[in-house]
């Protein structure tokens, strides 16, 4: 007997997921999601307590207790007292742990991010063999009996011998029989399935000059985390390369990448040259889907800008690199910044719009960048970098 409660319980889950969808939408829209990196692939979201609202008393802040206390004794120091009715606390709610995949799917809808496409590649990750074909020749052990007999039946029907009665060994009276001959025989045959390689290399590079302060590094970290999650969704194997540069570029580990600061000069092209060098032996572009994300605060040695553009053009063509994303964080001014030069080059058609994209996180006219504004801008930037082409030149 199916239990009656099951249907009601299912309805309740529907109500919960309806509310969840709303909460998640708000969570992503408001940018709160940027700050919450899930634990073990789960992201927890709090949805308001679900209840049937009824007219109840609020918390009057008074009550009756029992015990040996004297007048004036403190019996509870916490924020929450002994609530006398349900739903007193605004913050009370149900915390739901969601898979990162689910959240990403919502993010995809919400930010209108398209699926990433691996570039056409000659290398194959794996060649699988699957017996899903039929052949006229083959070993008897692979004979496909059903197909064989169907062929025999067809042939006999065509010949007009299907209704003939024959004496079959073991049978006393003549019976109709289907007798395959050699050309009726069909054999199972394998087919090769080639799975194209789905390796991705994500290169994070950043300017390491003294002007990249803690706040900017944090923005880099938040952006990189979500970009990483997003790319990982589409590739089986993702390698990461962290490149840090002042006037010279070098490879660093993840922790150093987000924290290390040094007040040297700034030569942006050095990072690009360093990355391009890695393509020669370590990550041949034929075998890897390459994503390059470069973070800067827009400061560059003024002689270097031309070199930056030319390196970008020569070493990062569309056939080699899937995407180059350049993020400029809190620049002092737009003119003479890295983004300005790249945008001009894009506008003149010197760079390919399909694989070079730029975005910017800017300070509001005056004062500090507010938390909400920061998160929204980060989401917007991710959208500009990974989103549809139309929004590429923001």
């Amino acid at each position, binding site marked *: 007997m199916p239990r009656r*409660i099951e249907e009601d319980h299912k309805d309740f889950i529907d109500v919960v997921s309806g509310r969840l969808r709303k909460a998640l939408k708000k969570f992503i829209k408001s940018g709160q999601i940027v700050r919450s990196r899930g634990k073990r692939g789960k992201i927890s979201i709090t949805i308001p307590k679900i209840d049937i609202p*009824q007219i*109840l008393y609020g*918390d009057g802040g008074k009550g*009756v207790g029992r015990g*040996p206390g004297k007048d004036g004794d403190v019996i509870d120091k916490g924020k929450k007292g*002994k609530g006398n009715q349900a739903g007193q606390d605004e913050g009370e709610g149900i915390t739901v742990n969601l898979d990162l995949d689910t959240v990403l799917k919502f993010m995809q809808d919400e930010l209108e991010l398209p699926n990433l496409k691996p570039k056409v590649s000659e290398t194959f990750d794996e060649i699988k063999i699957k017996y899903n074909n039929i052949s006229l020749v083959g070993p008897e052990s692979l004979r496909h009996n059903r197909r064989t007999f169907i062929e025999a039946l067809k042939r006999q029907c065509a010949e007009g011998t299907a209704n003939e009665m024959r004496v079959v060994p073991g049978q006393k009276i003549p019976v109709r029989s289907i007798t395959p001959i050699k050309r009726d025989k069909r054999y199972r045959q394998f087919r090769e399935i080639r799975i194209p390689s789905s390796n991705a290399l994500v290169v994070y590079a950043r300017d390491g000059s003294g002007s990249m302060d803690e706040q900017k590094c944090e923005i880099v970290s938040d952006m990189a985390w979500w970009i990483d999650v997003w790319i990982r969704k589409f590739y089986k194997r993702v390698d990461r390369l962290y490149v840090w540069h002042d006037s010279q570029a070098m490879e660093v580990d993840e922790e150093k990448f987000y924290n290390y600061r040094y007040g040297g000069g700034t030569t942006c092209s050095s990072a690009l040259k360093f990355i391009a060098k890695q393509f020669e032996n370590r990550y041949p572009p034929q075998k890897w889907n390459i994503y390059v994300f470069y973070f800067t605060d827009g400061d560059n040695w003024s002689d270097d800008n031309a070199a930056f553009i030319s390196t970008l053009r020569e070493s990062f063509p569309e056939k080699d690199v899937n995407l180059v994303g350049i993020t400029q964080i809190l620049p002092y001014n737009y003119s003479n910044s890295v983004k300005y030069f790249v945008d001009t080059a894009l506008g003149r058609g010197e760079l390919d719009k399909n694989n070079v994209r730029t975005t910017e996180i800017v300070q509001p006219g005056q004062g500090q960048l507010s938390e909400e504004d920061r998160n929204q801008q980060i989401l917007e930037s991710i959208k500009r970098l990974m989103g549809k082409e139309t929004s590429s030149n923001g």
Partner: protein
Amino acid sequence: MASSKFFHGSSLLIGDNTVPGVKLPKELREHAQTILKACHDWGLDFYPTVVQLLTYDEISEVAAYGGFPVRYPHWSFGMQYEELQRGYEFGAHKIYEMVINASPCYIYCLDSNTLLDHLTVIAHATGHNDFFKNNVFFSATDTNMLNNMANHASRIKKYMTRWGKEKVTEFLDYLLRIDTLVDGAAAWHTKVVRDKNIADKRNYRFPRRLRVDPDRLYMDDYINTKDFKDRENDKVKERDIADELGFLMEPVKDVLGFLRDNAPLKPWQQDIMSMIYDESLYFYPQRQTKVLNEGWASLTDSVIMAEQGFVGLGQKTHDSGIVEYATHKMGVLGGKYSTNPYKLGFNLLSDIRDRWNKGRFGPEWEECRDSAKKESWDTGAMLGKDKVFEVRKYYDDLTLIHEFFTEDFCREQEYFEWRRYADGETMVESHDYPKIKRLLMARHVNGGLPDIRLTEHNYRGKGYLMLEHNFEGRPLYEPYVRDVMVGIRFIWGNDVFLSTKGHDGTEIIFECSDNDPQNVRVRARK
């Protein structure tokens, strides 16, 4: 099935095919009979009993449905179920038993309980059973509710197939928000079946006349004087005018009943509303007598199990179960300083029994100011048992606390008043007896829920609904008020107003003219 051979009057039925469950073990069958007989001998008078063993899953299901095996489909039951399941998984709470007020009375026991737990639970539940049968506040409830609920379920299911599940569920969502706005006294009103064939729907009022003995009709002019007649005629006229203008003569507490009769509803909506109304009235006395009911059941099981020594039933020695019993009791009532309402009920009833046993009542006791004399007061009246039986028959929570929460009791049980300050600290405010009593009683007025009354159904002459909260010092929980008002507006089909008071005692008016709870306006009235 098998009826008891031990005693007349009440019988024990074991198992029922219509509800899910586990078979009762044989030893429990016998011992259950013994416990019921003991209850009967102590003086309880209860409905025939069906004892049913359920697994935790099943008991959660039954509990989610409020004890009834069949209820109408609604997600809120699923929510209850989820909560109970979670609570059980995390070990936060455990349902030992469930009893429902019906004849026969169903007692659901958790199958993983020990034998002693089972017997305690049966004794406890029999206390409830007896209370349902005898307490005056339950006298108008329908003992056939099990079937009624099933009928409601099938009717609502029918509407769901006819009008769509979403539509009916939406209506139910709104309806369940106001199912507490009923008047418990309405259960005693005679139900008027309206005859639809009569074209003239006016209700004629007749002026009141005092009764005169038919043999002495000459006295009529002296009894029903001209003044009196004029006054009564005027009253009728006033009410007729009020009817015409759409005034209510007095605030209506039975808001749900008023809406059922007067809101512009479709027939199926009206039918659902009358079902929800009946169910709501059925549950009303249970809210009203929570403390006394649980107290009474706790007293019953403590008398049967501990005082009469049935803890030894099925155990190795006659008293080997007492520790387990005490632990169980502790779990149910909470520790020494528990503010659990069940504990309050149990303590009050125990105190009453003790006082009437020792004759500590009446004017002499009240007037006695000599504490030493009071300490050793014992007239040997031994009226305790009679008194508690009387209390269980005629009292509800409010009257129980009003009459028996005495200053001595308050001091002995170490009650105090606390207050929470803005910085989150909770402090002991005072040990002042009248204040504590007032707080406790306020908690049980109207079943512990705010008293909302309908004052006008044609407010501002535009057919708006005006509700008024009978403010007794505790403000309402605002977010819910908004949602509830949207619900009432949906049913009434016109704007709804609610007047109440804020923390500082100023009058505020909620004004709902939209389907969005956020758009409910709040105004302060000077």
